[in-house]
């Protein structure tokens, strides 16, 4: 079946609305996770090369998948820009997920430094995807700085706690004219589904899959949940009755009439 419900990011068109993180996996499971997730975008990190024989993660990622390097490890805009430039030097495209944090306990992103990095990188032609704490003012600054989307966190990275910032993500979805990709903290397919029902453009998840009992099966469960949430959003959710009830059955023709 052809899927016409596509979305675009920096001029590139995607069908899948599931961005998969590649951290914490046994490399042998990455390919299955990507395939079962139906993911078209995979995040990666940059680290120093250890000259001892190391496996190359790229050998485990299926052909044709868009690589999205992140700037993890950056503590300020300058370090993020440096990492982004090094990532682009690898020749895998212009995408970069800007991730700047200097708090090692909660791993919360620094919105201010992220705005600065977004501005510099967008001017250099990067497709900048800023990971941020969901704040409307900061998101607007990121839009003005040239961001290609906004990636608000649902709850702290790796916590699997779900949509703790739901109200604020909804504000971004309603007010920001770029794809909103909910990133970090989504722990269950139902939470991914809920974010999609709210109108998110896509979901990014890593720990929820990497720490699941059956990794490929969980990747598939997320894929289905994201598709269901998207279909629900496009369909228009039924209204909520705040008081009383409303019968689904006819209110006439009862046997006792």
């Amino acid at each position, binding site marked *: 079946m052809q899927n016409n419900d596509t979305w675009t990011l920096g001029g590139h068109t995607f069908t899948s609305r599931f961005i998969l*993180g*590649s*951290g*914490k*996996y046994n*490399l042998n499971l*990455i390919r299955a996770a990507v395939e079962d997730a139906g993911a078209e975008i995979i*995040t*990666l*990190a*940059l*680290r*120093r*090369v250890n*000259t*001892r024989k*190391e496996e*190359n*993660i*790229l050998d485990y990622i299926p052909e044709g998948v868009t*690589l999205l*390097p*992140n700037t*993890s490890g950056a503590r300020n805009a300058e370090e993020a820009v*440096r990492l982004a*430039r*090094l*990532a682009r*030097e*690898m020749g*895998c495209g212009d995408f970069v997920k800007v991730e700047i944090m200097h708090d090692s306990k909660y791993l919360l992103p620094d919105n201010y430094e992220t705005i600065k990095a977004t501005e510099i990188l967008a001017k250099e032609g990067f497709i900048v995807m800023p990971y941020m704490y969901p704040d409307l003012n900061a998101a607007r600054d990121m839009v003005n700085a040239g961001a290609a989307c906004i990636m608000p966190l649902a709850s702290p*990275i*790796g916590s699997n706690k779900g949509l703790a910032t739901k109200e604020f993500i909804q504000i971004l979805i309603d007010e920001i004219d770029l794809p909103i990709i909910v990133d*970090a903290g989504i722990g269950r397919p139902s939470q991914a589904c809920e974010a999609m029902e709210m109108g998110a453009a896509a979901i*990014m998840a*890593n*720990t929820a899959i990497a720490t699941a009992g059956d990794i490929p099966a969980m990747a598939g469960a997320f894929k289905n949940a994201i598709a269901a949430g998207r279909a629900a959003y496009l369909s228009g959710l039924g209204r909520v009755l705040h008081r009383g009830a409303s019968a689904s059955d006819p209110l006439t023709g009862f046997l006792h009439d």
Partner: protein
Amino acid sequence: MIKVNGEMLEIAEGTTVAAFLKEHGYPDKMIAVECNGAIIPRSTWEEAILKDGDTVEVVRFVGGG
């Protein structure tokens, strides 16, 4: 002495980036090299010479979120 990925190393005078990488067994694909904060493009590895006191970073992709 040069500093590579945080480690001090002796190098012979006139060592190019390409020769250094080969000598130390770095993979030849999917790495990027930075010297004193500036990227050394792959196309210049054969000519770029490492000098005493240089700080070099050699990076690659790993799994991440």
